């Protein structure tokens, strides 16, 4: 009988910016002051958008909303590493990533107002995926296409720690490895899948090691460290563009509720929540920027003011659009060419209900208006 070790694996953990705001320059990406400030602005913008959105939901002006509070670095760090022309495939908590990709806030709000207009994507971005984990396969498909076409581009997909229990996520990593798909999998391990803690989700010690079974590389990064996340994603994308997919586990924490219909007090303690105060991604980055004299109080106040004005405008714009919803449009996008039965049903609907209580088709939004402000910008390295 023979017994020998045939394979061994390990998982690396990366951090560039520590909790006290110190940077390890060997791990940090090479960014100039303006780029650093932009990362900061995007994180602040996302935090503020989430706060305002939750408040709007509480007043009944939005439906269910999934805030990304606490996960700004994981999203901004990774989304800004992706080149503008490369595909981003989100889950349902990627507000910050959408902002980093240049998506307008009013469209994010429209989606939360229950309007399909909000899911009209501009540029190489998929709309939010509500079924957990199912979108990982789409990114694998995009990335396989890049391999077939011989293009040095990659796709980046987001999912949570809970999603890694779904078969689809494993299938996506496995086929990506087998087919040399150009894809980077970003798991935001925010410690909770609604009320289920990470430890009850899987016995695996890390999520990153789930890559091992698929034969692809897995790496862990401090997801509250925007610089580390940016650098790790940059490296992963370089590898993926050559046909070697990577799974990144960004260790982070969901600081607020799962969605506005959730009450975290039922399943976790206040001590646990406040324990993450010092590890907050924005606080930490701010300390660093101040120490480096890239940011001072005045500049921070200017940025905050601009953010307030932008969000206020965008909320107005979202509410204006909301008044112009045409219900009969639900028939228009089922197929590229409506079937005779759909035409019949639409005519019946319009005869019985009118085309909509609030607007006529002429007054409805034009495609151009809907996509307005949707110029997608992203930045590669």
């Amino acid at each position, binding site marked *: 009988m023979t017994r020998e070790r045939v394979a061994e694996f390990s998982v690396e953990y990366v951090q560039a910016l520590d909790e006290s705001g110190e940077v390890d320059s060997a791990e940090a990406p090479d960014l100039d002051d303006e780029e650093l400030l932009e990362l900061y602005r995007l994180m602040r913008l996302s935090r503020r958008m989430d706060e305002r959105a939750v408040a709007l939901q509480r007043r009944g002006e939005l439906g269910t909303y999934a805030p990304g509070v606490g996960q700004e670095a994981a999203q901004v760090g990774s989304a800004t590493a992706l080149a503008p022309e490369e595909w981003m495939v989100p889950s349902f908590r990627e507000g910050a990533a959408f902002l980093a990709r240049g998506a307008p806030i009013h469209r994010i709000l429209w989606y939360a107002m*229950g309007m399909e207009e909000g899911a009209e994507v501009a540029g190489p971005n998929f709309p*939010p995926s509500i*079924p957990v984990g199912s979108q990982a396969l789409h990114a694998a498909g995009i990335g396989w296409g890049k391999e077939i076409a011989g293009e040095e581009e990659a796709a980046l997909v987001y999912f949570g720690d809970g999603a890694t229990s779904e078969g689809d996520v494993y299938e996506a990593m496995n086929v990506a490895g087998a087919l040399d798909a150009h894809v980077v999998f970003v798991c935001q391990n925010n410690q909770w899948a609604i009320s*289920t803690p990470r430890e009850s989700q*899987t016995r695996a010690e890390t999520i990153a090691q789930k890559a091992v079974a698929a034969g692809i590389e897995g790496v862990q990064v401090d997801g509250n460290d925007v610089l580390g996340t940016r650098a790790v994603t940059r490296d992963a994308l370089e590898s993926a563009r050559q046909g070697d997919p990577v799974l990144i586990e960004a260790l982070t924490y969901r600081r607020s509720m799962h969605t506005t219909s959730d009450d975290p007090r039922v399943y976790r303690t206040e001590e646990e929540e406040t324990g993450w105060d010092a590890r907050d991604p924005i606080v930490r980055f701010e300390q660093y920027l101040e120490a480096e004299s890239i940011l001072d109080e005045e500049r921070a106040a200017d940025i905050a003011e601009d953010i307030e004005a932008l969000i206020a405008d965008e909320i107005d714009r979202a509410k204006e659009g909301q008044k112009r919803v045409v219900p009969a449009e*639900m028939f228009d996008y089922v197929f590229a060419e409506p079937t005779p039965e759909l035409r019949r049903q639409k005519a019946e609907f319009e005869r019985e209900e009118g085309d909509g209580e609030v607007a006529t088709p002429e007054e409805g939004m034009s495609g151009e208006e809907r996509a307005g402000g949707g110029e997608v910008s992203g930045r590669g390295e």
Partner: protein
Amino acid sequence: MANEIRLVEAIRQALDEEMGRDDSVLVYGEDVGVSGGVFRATKELRDEHPDRVYDAPLAEAAILGLGVGLGATGFRPVAEIQFASFVYQGFHQLQQHAARLRSRTRGTLGVPMTIRMPYGGGIRALELHSESFEAGYAHLPGLKTVVPSNPADAKGLLTSAVRDPDPVVFLEPTSRYRASRESVPEGEHTVPLGEANVVREGEDVTVVAWGAMLAEALSAVDDGDLDADAEVVDLRTVSPMDSKTILNSVRKTGRCVVVHEAPRTAGLAAEIIARINDDALYYLEAPVERVTGYDVPFPLFAREEAYRPDAERIRRGIERALSR
């Protein structure tokens, strides 16, 4: 003895009482334990039955597949799929295993599993949280599909489902979870699967509905503008379907309107109309009308009211049936 409770509480009561009665009943699903489920249908159930209520990892194929294994070997699993639209992640387990284990083993193994799923629109939910797919389950031989419309039936039907030797899909209309408090018998209360209920008697037209649409149908027939004496049938179990009650009613009234929230094409109304054609055609005085959702993906909530049949649309359907 009866108490006034909501539908969601009736479900909890049925689970609690069945777990108390039978040690083999096991409740599990995403977030059902510590938090008591996203709709709180299993609230505090774990405190009372600590070893038999489990939070499952986020994996629907696992939830359904585990049930086949548990059910075939002595347990009575009651699994929750957090929202019906996520059953597809495990649909193969329903279709390829749960529904046919008895047939393919010629009765040697069975799956006494109940699969509870919130479903349907009307609560301003997120995308893919509002679909009605009862016709899809009804299309799977070997599966029973139940939809309660009120608290007492919810308790009685769920109790029967848990005790049933075969897999039962138990669809809970989310918009009715907290819609009203109604009287529900305390203690032992069962409603047999496969029996429709004539909830209102009438002579002029039969209205068939189930789940959330039943309340809309009732408010349509009670609308002062409607000049007709309508009979309302709550289907309760969509599969196996109680054709007899529907046919008896249609033979009496000669007219029929079938209501469902699901899309029209290949919906259950089509099956009901086919059965009427088979066995009561010559009693009909007008073609059977259907009032349904449209053949479009269930819209996000800004357009959901436009999509869902309501009392107004049902009243117009009844008037069409009466005028022909």
